């Protein structure tokens, strides 16, 4: 009898534990699912790695992060090299070059803009991975590796800030905030007390950096995994 009473009491009281809301956000979730599946069909990268690609649509906060940041190293080096090459090809006097209005230059401009968009998104993805790893893993060895990565990402962030990628006001602001956060990580002593790390964490949270990065990464962009 006592057992039955306990079970009844338990069910009644435990029902509040992680009680789901009454209204399920059906439409919003369906939109995300449909977008993700459409992107899969359109993107050859997604076809090669459907799971990795899909994760970018569903925030990915929970997906395995530890294995991804080495890929971010490769990504940031690639992006940095790409942007640097762009600067070199454009040359120092590009700003003084006469403007020739033609279909060709308009097309070039569109391609260039798209290229910077892709570079920005790839960079933001790498930063997101690094920041998530930074917040989640406090082992000294890992932190040292993350700091090296942060230094590379900081350099790329600055290159992007000086590039057409920063013409968009919200992206420019995001890059500026990233520069601030990354700079703090770069100068952080790996053996620093927890309070110093907490300051960086608070900066990340205060500026809502991760949320803003995620909302800047369009559906369909593969973060790799």
């Amino acid at each position, binding site marked *: 009898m*006592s057992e039955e009473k306990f079970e009844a009491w*338990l069910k009644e009281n435990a029902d509040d534990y*992680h009680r*789901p809301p009454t209204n399920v956000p*059906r439409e919003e979730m369906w939109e*995300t699912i449909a977008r993700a599946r459409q992107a899969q069909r359109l993107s050859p990268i997604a076809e090669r790695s459907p799971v990795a690609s899909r994760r970018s*649509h569903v925030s990915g906060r*929970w997906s395995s992060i530890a294995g991804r940041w080495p890929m971010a190293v490769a990504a940031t080096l690639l992006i940095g090299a790409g942007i640097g090459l762009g600067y070199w090809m454009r040359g120092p006097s590009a700003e003084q070059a006469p403007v020739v209005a033609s279909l060709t230059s308009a097309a070039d401009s569109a391609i260039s803009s798209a290229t910077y968009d892709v570079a920005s998104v790839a960079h933001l993805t790498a930063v997101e991975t690094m920041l998530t790893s930074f917040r*989640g893993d406090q082992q000294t060895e890992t932190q040292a590796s993350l700091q090296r990565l942060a230094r590379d990402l900081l350099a790329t962030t600055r290159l992007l800030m000086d590039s057409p990628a920063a013409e968009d006001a919200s992206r420019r602001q995001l890059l500026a905030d990233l520069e601030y956060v990354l700079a703090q990580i770069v100068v952080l002593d790996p053996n620093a007390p927890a309070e110093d790390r907490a300051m960086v964490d608070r900066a990340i949270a205060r500026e809502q950096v991760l949320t803003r990065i995620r909302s800047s990464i369009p559906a369909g962009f593969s973060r790799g995994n």
Partner: protein
Amino acid sequence: MSESQLVARAIEGDQAAQRALYDAHVDRVYRLAYRVAGDDDLARDFTQEAFIRAFDRLPTFRRESSFGTWLYTIAMSVSLNGIRSIKRLRTREVSIDAAESLGKRDRHADPDLKDRLKRAIEDLPPGYRTVFLMHDLEGYTHEEIGEVLGIQSGTSKAQLFRARARLREVLADFAGAWSA
């Protein structure tokens, strides 16, 4: 149209059929995910991921169980793996918080039943907690739980029994509430 026909059409890429399957099961999947995660954003993520995976893998669905059971299996796998990753990431933060509050918390000094119950459920071993959530809170039968989690229904019963016993022990302070 029967669920079997919907599945067949969904495999062929019929979006209306996919949507119909989604509508039929999304509430249950979301509820499960929410019970595991306790957070709306995560529950949405897990639900979305579960459906995306399910639609991807639909051609491999062998109809040995109902579509619902098969889908809930995917949903639970996504949710449990997801929450495990999150907990791994948060372990350090939590341990710092716990260390700070150490000594301040007296077992008998916490009068809040809800908090104590919440902590007790969270402290259950993952297998016990999952069965407890599915059976006592979401109303799944042991047979359904067995299919979804890939365990025997007897194992599900045993885990529920142990989960309740552990909760009863931990919540002994409140014995008056249920024996009255």
